[in-house]
């Protein structure tokens, strides 16, 4: 997506809104050895203590800016590989071996970030300033209750994360792009849509068609931006109702996105185990093929495709979501300006 350099609102959105939780990577990506992740307009270093406790700092040594991720994790701190400067997980420099007693020691000199693990992923609070206590991470019920079962599918796509948001806020592409897929062969190819408000966002849905194809998308803001949709399984999917997808998307860099989809189903007992077995044995590959159809289109879109669009009624959800995000970005800029004044 072409970001207009002269538009500060666009610049805010390009790197992701601040003061929100974002999924960073699957839990399995981070062990005791520090890992560098480029996300949200900067680089983070993540590592675990032997007990499993997770930490995140900006991947930037306060001394000369070397990546801390190339250093050595020592429990709750990292010793920079360049000059041995030790930075604790709260960003305080604990030791400068080359110059003991220098004023860098004891200074809070590196940005530190709060992280949480849930639903197989690591989430980071993208705070605008260092804070002691982040707000709670509120995930949709499908990822937290016992009556749903889920699998995380994580992918990295070329293209701006806002094109991924647009794609999910566009149920009608299911009828065309995914027509030959295992679960989206049904449904009318024309439809009227409407927007319905919810407590946490809005639903963009087809009028008079539900439970047939990809018929609606929900946008929600619970301190984390996420989307929800349902796709009816064919009879081969067995008992358990619709296939539910929770999506959340994080910018990696200008034209790369971290794409998180949790595939969920309301199942328990033998139905749950059978769905999980079939998912591992075969359904995951089929869902993957559908997701690849999206990736093929999105990655081939020109970065400035959004500058030359002719939208119609089916794109009302996209228009609504873009406006909503721009308003949030404007509010963020205004709050920043007030603080600076």
């Amino acid at each position, binding site marked *: 997506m072409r970001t207009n350099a002269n538009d500060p609102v666009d610049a805010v959105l390009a790197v992701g809104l601040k003061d929100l939780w974002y999924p960073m990577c699957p839990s399995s990506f981070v062990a005791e050895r520090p890992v560098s992740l480029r996300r949200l307009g900067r680089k983070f270093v993540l590592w675990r203590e032997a007990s499993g406790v997770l930490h995140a700092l900006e991947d930037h040594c306060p001394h000369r800016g070397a990546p801390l991720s190339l250093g050595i994790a020592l429990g709750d701190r990292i010793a920079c590989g360049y000059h041995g400067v030790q930075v604790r997980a709260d960003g305080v420099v604990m030791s400068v071996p080359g110059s003991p007693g220098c004023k860098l020691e004891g200074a809070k000199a590196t940005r530190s970030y709060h992280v949480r693990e849930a639903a197989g992923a690591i989430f980071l609070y993208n705070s605008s300033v260092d804070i002691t206590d982040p707000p709670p991470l509120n995930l949709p019920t499908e990822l937290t209750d016992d009556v749903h079962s889920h699998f995380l*599918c994580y992918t990295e796509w070329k293209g701006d994360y806002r094109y991924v948001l647009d794609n999910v806020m566009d149920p009608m592409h299911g009828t065309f792009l995914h027509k030959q897929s295992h679960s989206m062969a049904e449904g009318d190819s024309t439809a009227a849509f409407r927007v319905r408000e919810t407590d946490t966002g809005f639903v963009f849905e087809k009028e008079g068609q539900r439970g047939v194809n990809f018929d609606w998308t929900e946008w929600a803001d619970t301190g984390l931006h996420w989307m929800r949709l349902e796709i009816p399984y064919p*009879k081969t999917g067995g008992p358990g109702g619709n296939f539910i997808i929770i999506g959340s998307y994080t910018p990696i860099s200008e034209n*790369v996105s971290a794409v998180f989809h949790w595939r969920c189903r309301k199942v328990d007992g*033998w139905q749950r*185990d059978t769905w999980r*077995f079939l998912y*591992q*044995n075969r359904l*995951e590959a089929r869902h*993957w093929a559908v997701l690849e159809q999206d990736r093929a289109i999105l990655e081939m879109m020109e970065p400035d495709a959004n500058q030359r669009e002719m939208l119609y009624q089916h794109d009302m959800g996209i228009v609504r979501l873009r406006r909503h995000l721009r308003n949030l970005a404007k509010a963020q800029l205004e709050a920043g300006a007030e603080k600076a004044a």
Partner: protein
Amino acid sequence: MMQELYLNPHQARRRQPTAYEDLLGDSIERAYAAGVHDLAGLVAHLNRTGPNCPAGGVWTEDSYRAEIARLAAEC
């Protein structure tokens, strides 16, 4: 330099499926496709079409529950 992007089509399963697991998956899907969505019907379908229950020939509701729980956790 851009790191290679993460694109792994198999993130849920722990290993390649065995021939038996593939046959079982085929059989369950055929039962489901025929509208058999209850456990008694599924067990009867497996006993009619196979594969055999690895624990001892004939599927029962209990042996199916135990076997599918094992497979869901191990596959």
